[in-house]
């Protein structure tokens, strides 16, 4: 069974993560997913790929804490968080949040809060690789 919180270079399967989440409880009546994807155009530039750097040990612990905080803050049954690092070509998956709850409202709210909080609390940095060169990305909401 895949761990519910992971940082990995390889792509993830949304279907596999949803299946893993659903296997934890038959009380789950709603599953909400957020999948962040690498765009091929940003701030007027064509993007070939993104490259993510992490503070490895701290990033994983921050994501594990984020999972616990999400479980405590919302009336949900489970949440899984997967983030990729290293080079990610445009069009590929970056991050996945999967939330399961009895009813949809809590799952939508928890999923939105979880990705917003990830951006502010997990030590990861994104670099854009363009035909003209590469540059670090300033954070944006």
């Amino acid at each position, binding site marked *: 069974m895949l761990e519910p919180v992971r940082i990995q270079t390889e792509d993830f399967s949304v279907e596999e993560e949803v299946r893993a989440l659903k296997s934890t409880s038959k009380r789950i009546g709603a599953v909400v997913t957020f999948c962040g994807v690498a765009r091929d155009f940003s701030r007027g530039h064509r993007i070939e790929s993104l490259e993510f*750097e992490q*503070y490895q040990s701290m990033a994983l612990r921050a994501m594990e804490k984020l999972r616990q905080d999400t479980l405590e803050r919302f009336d949900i049954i489970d949440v899984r968080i997967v983030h990729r690092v290293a080079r990610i070509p445009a069009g590929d998956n970056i*991050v996945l949040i999967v939330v399961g709850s009895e009813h949809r409202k809590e799952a939508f709210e928890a999923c939105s809060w979880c990705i917003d909080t990830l951006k502010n*609390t997990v*030590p990861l*940095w*994104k670099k854009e690789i363009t035909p003209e060169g590469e540059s670090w990305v*300033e954070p944006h909401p």
Partner: protein
Amino acid sequence: MIRVLLFGVLATKTGTKEMSLEIETPVTIEGLIEELRKRLPSLPEGEFLFAINEEQASKESIVHDGDTVAVMPPFSGG
């Protein structure tokens, strides 16, 4: 001795990902950054985030001998 880690744009601009800093301790993060600027003049200005031994810290946090201090630009994951 303090182990200092730099990430993202800070590592790129200074050409340094990791360094050892001989500095009198205890010292605040703010004091450590002042000393770091003397060694790495290309360290950019701006709002940084900090961690001491992988725990998030502030400019007022106290650094002790043997600590690992991460100096980080704002996070941009997701």
